[in-house]
């Protein structure tokens, strides 16, 4: 059956990876790898997601109905792009002997992006609240 076959293949691929991981490095390297493997999940599951849930919860409570969806979309887009950009925003890998590396105005770029996202969010929200008022129905949401 397809599923059983897939499980077998998957376990073999994963086992090869585990063997590569454990056999090609010294203990210190393995401990460092293990730390990063575990830290990533912990930070995501117990910090990032709860923060996102709290922010989203607050947003839907405090914002007018027409605003909550556009703001949520804006937060997802800008938030995930900001995470992607952390290494360049901090320029942690910059080297004084190499001017061709990390050679853009990243913070200015981020500000432009944030401004664009904000403009779109505000424009869409205003449009939605006007449409809601015109149709006579109260905007949905709490």
């Amino acid at each position: 059956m397809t599923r059983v076959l897939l499980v077998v293949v998957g376990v073999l691929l994963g086992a090869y990876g585990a063997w590569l991981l454990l056999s090609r490095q010294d203990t210190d390297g393995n401990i460092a790898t293990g730390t990063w493997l575990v830290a990533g999940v912990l930070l995501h599951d117990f910090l990032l997601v709860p923060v996102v849930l709290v922010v989203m919860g607050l947003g839907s409570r405090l914002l007018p109905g027409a605003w909550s969806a556009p703001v949520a979309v804006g937060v997802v887009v800008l938030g995930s792009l900001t995470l992607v950009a952390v290494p360049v925003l901090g320029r942690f890998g910059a080297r004084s002997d190499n001017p061709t590396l990390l050679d853009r105005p990243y913070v200015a770029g981020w500000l432009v992006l944030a401004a664009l996202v904000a403009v779109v969010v505000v424009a869409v929200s205003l449009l939605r609240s006007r449409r809601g008022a015109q149709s006579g129905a109260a905007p949905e949401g709490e």
Partner: protein
Amino acid sequence: MTTALKAPTPASFTSRLHSPAVAARVGVWLGVCFGVAFLTGLISHYAQNVSQPIPFPTSPSWGYRVTQGLHVITGTAAIPLLLVKLWTVYPKFFERPPRNVRRVVVEVLERVNTGLLVSAGIFLLVTGTLNVAQWYPWEFSYRRTHYAVAWVAIGALVVHIAVKLPIIRDALRGDVDDTTHDDPAATRDGGVSRRGLLTTTWVAGGLAVLTTAGSTVPALRDLSIFGVRSGDGPGGIPINKSAVAADVTATATSSSYSLSVVHGDNAVTLTREELSAMTQRTETLPIACVEGWSASGEWTGVRLRDLLDLVGAPRDRDVAIGSLQQEGAFRDSLLQGNFADDDRTLLALQLDGEPLSIDHGYPCRLIAPNRPGVLQTKWVSTIEVAT
């Protein structure tokens, strides 16, 4: 709300966005991204292997540029996708184990697999993104570890797909707003529709690519506000390792510099002037770095095969290229026979009609088609043919 804070259960998450109908749709594209990144990663790993039972092809010259560009692009696009996917299925994390003993065993194994997949997936995206920006805040070997964890991730992904196959199939056949597989508590309409969340995810993934890919796709250069390299550099090509970092400034500019070409007992020594006096060829070849950036250049210099002929080297022999650089993993490289014999493989003296800058490898550097940038040895001082 207070009980939800104490001990969340899946029922604590009431948004109707927490649905397999959403997770399956994001999951498909996440799977595609991981699949492409895995395959292109294998290609890159093999291209850097010293031992290649099946010779890595020298054509097309832009092959590695495309595969490694795709590797970094799909990995970057996967970041927003993974975040949304994990948020969507987050309530499952708080599911209580079943009472039936046999089911518990299966459930535990499945949870372990999911844990491995999430942990390996996050690890790959984080270390990959940091590596692209040349930030190494860890104490393990990046290349080996990223490679090994990729096998773990792809294995766990295949198992995950096998476990979820019926529900994936069902979810994809049905409408995105179908509630068949939803948790009974997940009914609250929070304002964003499921289609809205999916569109948001595609937009975030697309923007992640547009804002970074200019480092390898010249057309996107102006849009890539988060690109690690603007693309500027001497001769229009950025630099990975500078002469200062390689500690070769003195030896590379020394008047006593010479290149030695050795094949067994046959050896010749050439100064840069003597290299310039040989037949010069010009080739348009890309520098394509493992970190995902690339740029095409017009290189001029001596065809490597012409140098090998000076010492009577037979065809199809591996050639060791040594640098003036005294230390570092890439101070030398092994050029496989098919690369050494390719007419486009040069010992370049010029880039874009100007003498090589010292950071690009003055007095001369190797440039071969379809080869990872780290193996395009700079500041070449020895060429040794395997006997």
